[in-house]
């Protein structure tokens, strides 16, 4: 508290007194936890790939440090700058994604990456927060002037994004982006009838994805009927969590993780379950839930539509991604390549999330000593 004087008018001083410190604290706890967990889950995979045991852990450390810098750095930016950067950034990302389709390398039948030196960049990860902010900007126009067909324009943009991502193909990201977009539309006042029809369209398009993308079909088949194919990863994940019991086997003691191919990325929750126990899994869930709920409830006092839509979208993206990943680990969702925010190994995904959460912090900066008059929406213990 005594770092900055209340009369300090420097950028840092103003930031300290206006930023949502609870949110910042939770994000830092999550990042540190992620670093710790990367040390236990990744050596097994690194050794299996014939790399230095700490290969992934070291790189993860670099990514997490960069993430921390990004979160704080972005949260320092003025809202106007963020909006402008996103509006300019969106076409750039579209261009990069088109590049992945043409010159990007193909891994596992998908071209989602661009090779830059020894790092691979996945532009679609960065597209998520940027697209959410642009959507918020478009939809916030509806709050002021209904003459602009903002929802229609946004819908067209959404279709374009879906088209790009499905070409990679990346059904999982498309699904996530569409889900968040729909939530933003709902917040922007999309009538219930439309929401319900959109839900139906969502189900239909999932069925179509099932029809047209063989890997989606096989994953869903395996989820519905485990006997129909190889459910090795999911089985192993469940086995790992079961083996851990409530208190886990202890750090580094996991054995099921040795046979989990993606132990350091998509299935890190299972490794945590095995080594630290179901209770640690609960704590991690609580941490995610805390970030999401704190973030959303905090927005109840927000007056500006753009800030509300953008921040809510970013938080929901973060939360949905965590829930989908954990759901897959717990075998209650079909397997899908979705990372656990700040915990899974992966540079693009982590930096993109840092960007997103940094923007959330920037968007929710305000004078902490002036409260909204909307007492009807203030919950005890939330603000």
């Amino acid at each position, binding site marked *: 508290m005594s770092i900055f004087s209340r009369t300090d008018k420097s950028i840092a001083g103003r930031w300290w007194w206006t930023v949502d410190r609870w949110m910042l604290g939770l994000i830092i706890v999550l990042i540190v936890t992620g670093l710790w967990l990367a040390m236990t889950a990744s050596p097994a995979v690194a050794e299996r790939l014939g790399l230095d045991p700490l290969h992934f852990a070291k790189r993860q450390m670099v990514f997490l440090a960069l993430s921390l810098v990004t979160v704080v750095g972005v949260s320092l930016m003025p809202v106007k700058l963020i909006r402008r950067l996103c509006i300019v950034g969106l076409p750039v990302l579209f261009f990069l994604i088109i590049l992945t389709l043409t010159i990007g390398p193909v891994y596992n039948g998908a071209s989602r990456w661009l090779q830059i030196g020894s790092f691979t960049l996945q532009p679609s990860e960065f597209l998520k927060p940027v697209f959410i902010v642009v959507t918020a900007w478009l939809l916030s126009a509806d709050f002021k002037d209904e003459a602009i067909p903002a929802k229609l324009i946004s819908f067209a943009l959404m279709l374009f994004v879906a088209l790009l991502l499905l070409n990679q193909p990346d059904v999982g990201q498309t699904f996530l982006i569409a889900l968040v977009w729909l939530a933003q539309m709902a*917040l922007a006042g999309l009538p219930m009838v439309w929401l319900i029809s959109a839900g139906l369209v969502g189900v239909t398009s999932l069925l179509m994805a099932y029809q047209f993308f063989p890997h989606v079909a096989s994953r869903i088949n395996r989820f519905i009927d485990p006997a129909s194919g190889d459910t090795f990863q999911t089985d192993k994940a469940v086995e790992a969590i079961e083996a851990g019991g*409530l208190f886990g086997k202890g750090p580094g003691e996991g054995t099921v993780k040795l046979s989990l191919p993606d132990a350091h990325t998509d299935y890190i929750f299972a490794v945590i379950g095995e080594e630290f126990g179901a209770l640690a899994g609960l704590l991690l869930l609580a941490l995610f839930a805390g970030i999401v709920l704190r973030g959303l409830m905090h927005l109840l006092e927000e007056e500006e539509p753009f800030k509300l839509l953008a921040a809510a979208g970013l938080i929901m993206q973060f939360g949905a991604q965590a829930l989908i990943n954990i759901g897959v680990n717990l075998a209650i969702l079909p397997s899908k390549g979705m990372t656990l925010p700040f915990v899974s190994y992966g540079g693009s995904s982590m930096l993109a999330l840092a960007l997103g959460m940094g923007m959330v912090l920037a968007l929710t900066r305000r004078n902490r000593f002036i409260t909204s008059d909307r007492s009807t929406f203030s919950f005890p213990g939330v603000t």
Partner: protein
Amino acid sequence: MTDILSRTMTLEGTGKSAMEVARTRLIAAGALFLVVFMAMAYRTVELGLSATPGAEKASRNRLVQVAVARYKRSDIVDRNGEILATNLASASLYANAHKVDDISVTAQKLVKILPTLTLADVERKLKSGKDFVWLKRHLTPEQKWQINAIGNPALKFKADEVRVYPHGNLAAHVLGHVDIDGNGIAGLEHYFNGSLDDAAKTDEPLKLSLDIRVQHALADELSAAVSAHQATGGAGIVMDVNSGELLAMVSLPDFDPNNAGNEPENTRVNRAAFRVYELGSTFKTFTIAAALDDGIINMEDSFNAVKPLNVGPFTISDDHPKKRYLRVPEIFAYSSNIGMARIADTLGADRQKEFLSSLGMLKPAKLELTEVGRPVFPQRWKRLSSMTISYGHGISVSPVQLSTGIATMVNGGRLIPATLVAKNIDTNFGENAGSGQIISAATSRKIRQMLRVTVRQGTGSKADATGYRVGGKTGTAEKASGGSYDRDALISSFVGVFPMDDPKYLVFVLLDEPKGIEQTFGFSGGGWTAAPVVKNVILRTAPLLGVKPSVEDETLYKNVALLFED
């Protein structure tokens, strides 16, 4: 002005209500997230509680990942895949001699751990100043641990492989052995050294025709006989007469290929393939077969065996003299040398030599061993030579050659070379089947009848394993010593084939200088010493080989039996 104001008011109103909707829906979204988070939490706890100690143990068991060890040399397995030779990872100790500073202390410690080394030798090596000097190859894990504990950085280990023969002495002569660097220097290890070391094929074991169970039964019975009769050695073979595959090949005394370097020289001689012997009466089969096949004699013909036959300075006499004219089956069953010599005389030396040559008796056997014996026979194959060769004297062949020849006599007349490598029934089983029709199927049938009758009522009766219709021939040869024969030093052998009505397997047993014992009433000939071994081997192995005992079809031998006078 009012217009503008009212518009602003309206806008304000829409904005406000839109914000209300947004906030309400935000709460709904938050609630939805909360519910899903709760569901995940429930599922996490559910999975965490479902662990039971037993379940975890089972999952651990399933998780054991066996790394497939890759070695530089192929395994050798028997026909059923039983491992006969394989590899183990080991460590070998070397030193970087110019880095050792406390030579005498280090050397003392090393000698204590490795008692086979001498102090002077180790010190000399450590003083040599070379960057690399071997100290000891193939350490045990415990020795390696102890040397590591010395903590001298100049002592280093090199990953090495050691060849292991899990069955020890069993089949040692067939497998051979390797030198310290793993190069085959005897037996199959030497013969197939190149392909066993072939880096592209180290996963493929070399599959032998041997059946280690049969090998064990033969080795066990043979060594019991060797010790009972105080023989200097023994040899044994079990062969598939229709494919030439050797199911067992034993040579006694034997050695442990795991420690071949320290075994006495004489144990390493393969008496079944390398040593050649004058094998005696078992050879009668060949001359009779040649004469029958050429139509020179008939089964009903009789020859004068009334008294010993004088040929020049040499006298041919019988071991079991009947002192009368003998029919052909009687000559065979009573093993009459006199009768045999007369048949050879009828056949002629040239034809006899040609016949034995076509049977492969005059060339080393084409076996997959480096140690294959060269037969010994007279350069001048005249009348007297022909007569003695007819009953197996004056010609030395290896047991494997004799077995191949007898197999040809009983399998319908086809010469099928003996082999130690498993034949694939689908691809190369029939490869050699037509390689040489030596005698007609009809002659082969007659030989089978005579072999069976020899066991039923002749000299081979002690080989009659009840129910297995054994046919066979004894062989008792005096060992040549200094230009004459020694009546007391015998090579006693017996070659048996079963079942005689449909020959499948041949069992050959040889004892080198057996002594007569009480149970054999002092006799040491093949019928007394080797025949019982053949019988026991058949009784032990026939069930393994799928040959069923059955009642004999008497009509098969009626014609031959009628030719016997007593």
